Each structure stands twice: as structure tokens, then as C-alpha cells.
């Protein structure tokens, strides 16, 4: 399954990079969103896949520690952070391009090469 997911990750990266290379500013945002997804899945897969063994210590048992096998909690913690941050960035970017579109009057990145007012 890791192999399959490696190709899924590659596909997501390719899709996001392609979208980020577009001139339309809306497509750039979609590309950014896809990039976040690709990175998260990359971290999950690189941390090894352990199906159906969440890193939870059962409350019924007398266990004082997490017994293997368990899914690695560390990549999960990283991804959880990344998902939330990614959302924040996306929301900001979304509002920013809306504002840019209203202010500059274009959605073509090629026409936004200069910081000077036209």
C-alpha cells in the first residue's frame, strides 16, 4: 500500500505544482490547497502505515503504556498541526486574492509584476 500511496502523493504534488504554475490567481489557490494535502499524505506515508492501530491506550486495561503495534503518533501530531495551519493560510489567501482582484482589477499573475501603482 505504501507504494500505491507513494504514487498518490506524487500525483497530488504534480497536480498542485501544475496549478501553481497557472497564471490565474484562483488556480494558484487551488494549487496551494492541493500542496497541503500532498505534504500531509507524504508525512503519513513516510512515518510507515500501520492499519487499524490508532495510538490510543485503552482505558479499560491496566496498561500504563502504549503497547506495539501502534500507528506512529509523531507524524500524526505533525500532520494535525499542518492541517490546521494549512487551513489558516488558505483562508487568508482566499480573502487576499479576492481583495487583490477587486483592487488590481485583474486575475492574471503576469500583470502583477510590479509593486508600483499603475
Amino acid at each position, binding site marked *: *500500500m505504501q507504494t500505491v500511496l507513494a504514487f498518490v502523493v506524487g*500525483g497530488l504534488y504534480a*497536480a498542485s*505544482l501544475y496549478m501553481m504554475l497557472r497564471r490565474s490567481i484562483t488556480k494558484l489557490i487551488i494549487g496551494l490547497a492541493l500542496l497541503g494535502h500532498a505534504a500531509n499524505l507524504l508525512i503519513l506515508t*513516510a512515518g510507515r502505515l500501520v492499519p487499524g492501530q490508532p495510538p*490510543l491506550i485503552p482505558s479499560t486495561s491496566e496498561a500504563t503504556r502504549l503497547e506495539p503495534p501502534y500507528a506512529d503518533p509523531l507524524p500524526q501530531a505533525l500532520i494535525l498541526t499542518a*492541517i490546521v495551519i494549512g487551513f489558516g493560510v488558505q483562508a487568508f489567501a482566499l480573502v487576499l*486574492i479576492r481583495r487583490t482582484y477587486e483592487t488590481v482589477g485583474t486575475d492574471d499573475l503576469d500583470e502583477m509584476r510590479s509593486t508600483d501603482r499603475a
Partner: protein
Amino acid sequence: MPESLLFGFALAAFSPLIHRFARGATGWVMGALVAGLTVRFALYVPAITAGNPVRTCWAWVPPLGVNVSFYLDGLSLLFALLICGIGSLVAIYAGGSLRGHPQLGRFYLYLLAFMTSMLGVVLADNLLTLYVFWELTSLTSYLLIGFNHEDSRARQAALQALLVTVAGGLAMLAGFVLLGLAGGSFEISVLSGRGPALREHATYLPLLALILAGAFTKSAQFPFHFWLPNAMVAPTPVSAYLHSSTMVKAGVYLLARLSPVLADTAAWTAALSTVGAVTMVIGATLALLHTDLKRILAYTTISVLGGLTLLLGLGTSSAVVAAMALLVAHALYKAALFLVAGNVDHATGIRDVRQASGLARVMPITAAAAVLAAMSNAGVPASFGFISKELIYEAIWGLSARGLPLLAATFLANALLVTTAILVGVRPFFGRRTAMPHMPHETPIALWLGPLVLALGGLVLGLVPARTEPMLAAAATAVEGQPAHPHLALWPGFNVVLALSAVTVLGGIGLYLAWERVRRVVPLATITRFGADRGYDLTLEAMLRFGTLQTRVLQSGYLRFYLIIIILTVVSLAGWALLKGEGVVKLLAGRWPSIYEWIIAGLVPLAALLAILSQSRLTAVIALGTVGYGLALLYLLYGAPDLAMTQFAIETLTVVLFVLVVYRLPPLVRFANWPSRVRDAMVALAGGALMTGLLLAATARPGASSLSPFYAEHSLSDAYGRNVVNVILVDFRALDTLGEITVLTVAAIGVHALLRLLPGRKGPRL
């Protein structure tokens, strides 16, 4: 001894303040203080000549063997005495020659900072300490050459000197690092004992070449000599101090200092004696073709620096002693001659040697200093210059047949130096007086004291040469690594060497008589056009052109081109490493995925593809949401319920947000034509392929996280939480989460501000 460096830097820092109070007397105050430093070093003489070096050391970066350490032996002490002694005279001189200059306080700041840095160079024991001080001298030299910064020539010359010496310095740093690695220590005093092993070391040649690059640029050896004559735009005290008697000798000092470590190999001897001999002859020849007093002196300085390099390259006992004697003699007479040239300029406004004549009657003291210094320069008996020249001839005569070309070169250079000595030290003061820009007058005491003391010093040492023996012996011992016993005599008796000396002087006088004719025959302009200076200009120009070209190519201003460059760079570098390290990545056999895994894994890329291809904003948003939900399902499958829940929640929020603004977003337009779409698709696919390859390579390795067991172990016992992921977030890595919350808050404020901020609307703006 380190306290003298602290004293020097403190004095430099306070010199503008001191100048504010001392006003016209600043030169004397500074001179006296620096003279005190000279005395401080002179007190070391008995201990050092008795063979007891002093070492001080503080750890700086202990794991790397980098220390701030100082070492005082005969060689360091000889240089330190010259630096401080001449420094105090130059400080006094500057007070007179720059009297009333609005930035005199700043000048002393630079000058004393230079002096202290130079002391640091000669006292440092650790190679990296030495490097720091070395670059400080380059920097202060830059500030001093460019002291008259309104003059564009001064700025150019300052930059040229800086670029040449710093480029060499960087090469030298690389050489030092290699030397430190090869020798297992950065302390020169330690390395000195490991010379034989180092000379056999595999990196000996590269490190030698790199270190020589530093020494040769600093000491203006051919073909890096050109910056030195250009540096003559600096005020005269600077030329006399930095660019004749001290800083330019830093390269020579380095060669001498590292002699026990690196010398006596074929490469060392060949490089140093060839470069030294060529520099010696070229410098002396070019000196003859110029008429500007200071430029003549600059070229003769280059010639002497070449001679010093040559002698150190020979490395025989007599050559090293001769080098030390030449060093002292040259420092004394050349500084004196520079100051004399400055006095002539000061009194008459003339710097061209052809225009000055008959000044002895109006400037008797300056003239006396000039003649004395010129005698030493020319090597007339009863001067220290004579003794040093005897020693040089002796050293080279001792080489027998293989020394013949060197003997010829030395003879030629020395004869030319005699000519220039007459040109600079004698000619302006005798003969008929001509019309001059100013009414000539004798200069005030601050201006004639320095040259007179220096020139008299040359005479006194020449009369009692035996008194210098212990100091020269101590210095030569440090260079050779074994005890040296020089013998200096006022009158060596009639022998071949004396005959050579006599012929040299006669030849020089002959050349002087023919000077005008020689100058007319040799086309200086042609030499300048093809000289090293021109090479420097061309190099600089080429670099600027390259920079322009590179900027034009790389900095297009188009976002996608920046992205393409970044992606392709990463793909080619990381891809190369991947192929080199892993070969063609093996596809993992692993467990065959179940049907629902296939469905989800297939759904995600398809949804991504739809997001790309869709021309409808709503469809694209829905496809994006599908990717997110697909990922959430994958998280659920692989034991990450927290991630799945978060992803579901966030994805829903994202879709809601998109839908809220989606019709205010610009519609999805195809701007690009199909060739650029194909190009972008190729680039994107390359990036995707790299990530797949990296991931396959990473998962192919047996890797168990070494951190996770810690969390598994301590989650319940230390943090009282059964959900390990949550415990990591809110307990073990709580500060990260705090940072994350801050980022979200900032983003929220940004969103709010962007929604509230309307262009053109009156009222408070956020």
C-alpha cells in the same frame, strides 16, 4: 601581550574623543602613547633573545580547536617593534601633515585600529585568530586608502586593494582550514613541530597554493602587485606605514611564520623564488619608468617585497638572516623616504620627481633625512642597507651554479634600486631651484622628526650592526626552526660580495645618468595597457556583465518562472542524489491493498485531476473537497482517527468558505496557450515523480522512529493522557501548539482586516 592589543583597540576607539580635547597636539599625544607600547614590547627583548617565547591562549570554539591564542617569539617581536616604533613616528607625522583636516579624529581611529590589527596578525598563534586580524588589516587599509572619499580615484583604489587582498585572504582561509585538518591543530606553535609529516601530506600542494595566494596578494607579488601603486592616493602617512613598512609585509610575515611548517619542499622553493625574483625585477623596472615620487617608492617597495619572498623561498640559514636584515633596513629607509616625499609635496606642492630640485637649501633637515635614507636604500657602506645587501649577495652567492639566474636578477634589481634611491632621495634636493607651486620652506618638527629618526636609525644600526645580532638571531631562529647565529659586520673585508656591491652601486649611478633616455625609449603606456591592472578591470567588468545577465535570466518577475527554476533545481539535485544513492528505486512488494484501499487511493488523484481540468469554479471546489475527504478516509484507515476528524471538519469549513466567496472570485480562465501548458505539465510531473521516488526510497529503508517509543512510554505515566497524539500536541509539544494558535490568530486578524479594508473608503484604516 594581549593587553597591548586591547590597549590599541581602546586607543583607536577613543581617538576621536582624544582629538576633540587635544586638538593640534593629537599627533604628539598619539605618538607618545604608541611609543609607550613600543617600550612595552622592547621590555620583552631580553626574554625573547634568551629563547623564552611567551604564549597566551583562551578557548574560543573548543570543539573545533579554535582558540584566541598569541605567541611572542623573535619573529613576532621584531615585527611588533617595527609596527609600534614606526607607528608612533607616523602618528606624530600625521598630526602635522593632516593638521586641520576635519576628519583627523577619524583618521587616527583607522590608523590605530590598523596598527592593532597588524599587531594581532604578528602575535596570533591560532591560524583563525590570525585570519581575523589579517582581514581587519585589509579592512582598515580600505578605509585608509579611501580616506579622501570625495576623490573617486581614492574610492576605486581602496576597493581594488580590498577586493584583491580579501580574495587572497579567502583563499588563505581555505588553506588554513586544510592545514588545520592535515596537521590536527590550528596552533602554529604546534604545527611547527609537525612540519615533516605535513610536507608529506596528500593535501600539502592545495593548501600551499591557497596560503600562497593569500600571502602573495597581501604582499603585492606579481601578478597581484597592481593594487599597491594605486593605493598611493592615500595620505602620505598611510603610504609610509601600511603600504611600505607594515601591512604589505604581512604576506612576507606569513611565509616566514609558516616556514617551519611548509618550507623546504621543491614546490615551496620554486614558487617563492620564481614569483619573488620576477616581482623583484618587475617592481624595480617599473619604478624607473614612473616620475611620481610616491609611485616610484611604491614600485621599489614591490621590488623589495619580491626580494624578501625570494629569500624566504631559498630558506637557507644565510638567506633567512638576510631576509630579516632586509626587512628591518627596508622598513626604516622606505618609511623615511615616503615621509620625505610627503614633505616635498607638503612644502612645494610637487610630486613629480622631474620638477623638484635644489630643495636642500630651504629644507636642510628633510634633505639630510632623505640622503641618509637613500644611502641605506642604495646600500652605501656605513648604512644598515649596505649590511643587508651584503647578506643577500652572500646568501645567493652561496647557492653556486643554480643561483646564477637569481644572482643576475638580484643584481639587476639592486642596481635599479640604487637609481631610484638617487632619484627620490638625492635629486630633488640638489641642483638649481626651479619655479614651484608653493614657496618652498622647511617643514615643522612634526614632519621632519619621523623621517630623520628613521633615517638615523638606519645609520646607527649600520654603524653598530653587532647590536642587532641577538634580535635578528631570535627572528631567524623562529623562521628556521633551529638556532641561527648571524654575523653582521660593518666592514666585511674585500671579497667577491663586496665587489658585487660596488658594481651594483656604480651600475645604479650609471643608470641614473641615463634615466631620461631610458624613460623615453620604454613605452610606459603600452605596458600599462597590457598590465595586470587592466586584467583586474577586465575581470571586474566580466563579473558585472555576468551578474547582469544572470539577473536578467533568473529575475524575470513572473511567478511561474521562479517556480519552474525552483522545481527544476530541486528535481535535478535531489533526483541526482536519489539515483546515485538508491539506484533505480525498488518497488516494494508489500501487502496487496484491499479493494477499498484501491478505491480511495484511486479517488484522490482523480479528484485532483478534475480540480485541474474543470473550467467551473464550483466543480473545482467540490473536487478539492473530495481530495480532502479522501485523505480523511485514508487517515481513518491507517490508525489516525484524530486526523480524520480534523480533516473532515476543516475540509467542510474550507468548502463552505470557498462556496461563500466562490462567485466573488475571478472565474477560471485559461490564460496560457497549449505549449506552455505542456511545459508546465512536464515540470509538474517531474516534481511529482521526484516526490514519489523520495517517498519510495524513504519507506524502503528499515526505519523505526526513535522518538515514538518515548511518547508511547511516557504518555500515560507522565502526562496522564491516553490519546498519545493529543498528549504530544498539548503537553510534550505544547509550545508548538501555542505557536500554531498564534499563527491562526494572526491569519484571522488578517482575514478580518482584508474584509474590512476597502480601498478608497474614508475613515480609519487598519
